[in-house]
């Protein structure tokens, strides 16, 4: 029978398909883990409700947990309680976002390329559901920020 820590550690290797440097544990979507004998149940909190990566993440979680020794059945449940919000992203997750060129959520984001605070919102709606587009007046690059939710 696996421990909750083992399951959580295994899930560190499951990444957001649209932000491959970000683990779903650091994204804060893994909520409760229940283990009963060889059965494991994982609660996943959906991020943005229209996120097309959700189905992928659910399936990846199921497969990853099923690989653990002593696990026979895995159930992944989508759960709205507690509601996911961007404050659930860990410090490590925020750093991962930044290294990927996406400013972490928050007011007046610093440019992930040059660090300048001279940035302005170009559009609230970016290339994926969870990102806005900013422009850096200092290094003159457009960049994305994960929207605060």
């Amino acid at each position, binding site marked *: 029978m696996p421990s909750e820590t083992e399951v959580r550690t295994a899930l560190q290797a499951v990444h957001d398909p649209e932000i491959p440097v970000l683990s779903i544990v650091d994204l804060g979507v893994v909520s409760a883990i229940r283990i009963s004998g060889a059965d494991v149940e994982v609660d996943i909190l959906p991020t*943005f*409700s*229209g*996120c*097309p990566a959700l189905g992928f993440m659910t399936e990846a979680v199921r497969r990853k947990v099923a690989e653990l020794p002593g696990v026979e059945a895995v159930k992944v449940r989508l759960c*709205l*309680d507690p*509601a996911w*919000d961007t404050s659930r992203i860990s410090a490590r997750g925020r750093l991962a976002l930044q290294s990927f060129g996406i400013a972490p959520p928050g007011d007046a984001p610093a440019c992930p390329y040059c660090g300048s605070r001279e940035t302005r919102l*170009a*559009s*609230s*709606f*970016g*290339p994926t*559901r969870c990102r806005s*587009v900013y422009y850096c007046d200092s290094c003159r690059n457009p960049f994305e920020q994960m*929207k605060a*939710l």
Partner: protein
Amino acid sequence: MEIGRDLDGGLRAVLREYVLSLADDELVLGHRDSEWCAFAPLIEEDVAFASIAQDEIAHAQMMLGMVQDLGGPGPDALAFGRASSAMRNAVLLERPNGDWAYSLTRHLVYDIADDLRTEALLRSRERSLVLVAERMRREERYHLEHGRTWVRALAHGGREALLRLQHALDRVAADSFDLFRPIAWEGALVRAGILAEEPSRLWEPFVARVQAEVGPFGLTFTPGRSGPHGRAGEHTPDLDGLLRTMGEVWRSDPHAIW
């Protein structure tokens, strides 16, 4: 948490009807929003409308899941398999997109209505309704801001822009009462504590808020207590066309996953 688990059959049916009306509003407007993709005046707006469409349709999907929990068919069958007479959306949302001014004005007016409606849902006794409302509100505030920013920008765009906005507001006003028209069963939901107040009581706050939003630009919102009755299944041929397009893939293969 499954919705309405401890409600009797009559109340479940009434709640199903109410949730269906909310879901259909989001579904139909979400489809209209998606029609702007590749046609909006700016590429940023192609993206914005496509994103907003994704949100609205996802909200519809969540609520259609609740309708299923309350004893209805599954979300896909509900979204793609119904005739227009079984749709419960307000007629305002099925109107064709028209010009840019109409699309933005309709969205802003609807987003204000939705804001009031979901705010009221936060006071529901049904935990699952509260959770869905919380989730939607976090995303909807971006829609509200989008509409506001654009209406403000257009209102400063000279005489023609202002005329088009006023014309759009008049057309939206003519269809607005449908959003909050009193419905026979709403009292039962309030008595059961499922809704904190009858949705129709939001009508006056809604009109006042829209007017407060557009008044500073010299625009007026003057809806009457009349107009179409979409909640009762009375729709226009425009909805038939929309449903035909939206359900095309599903009808060709109901088990397809995409």
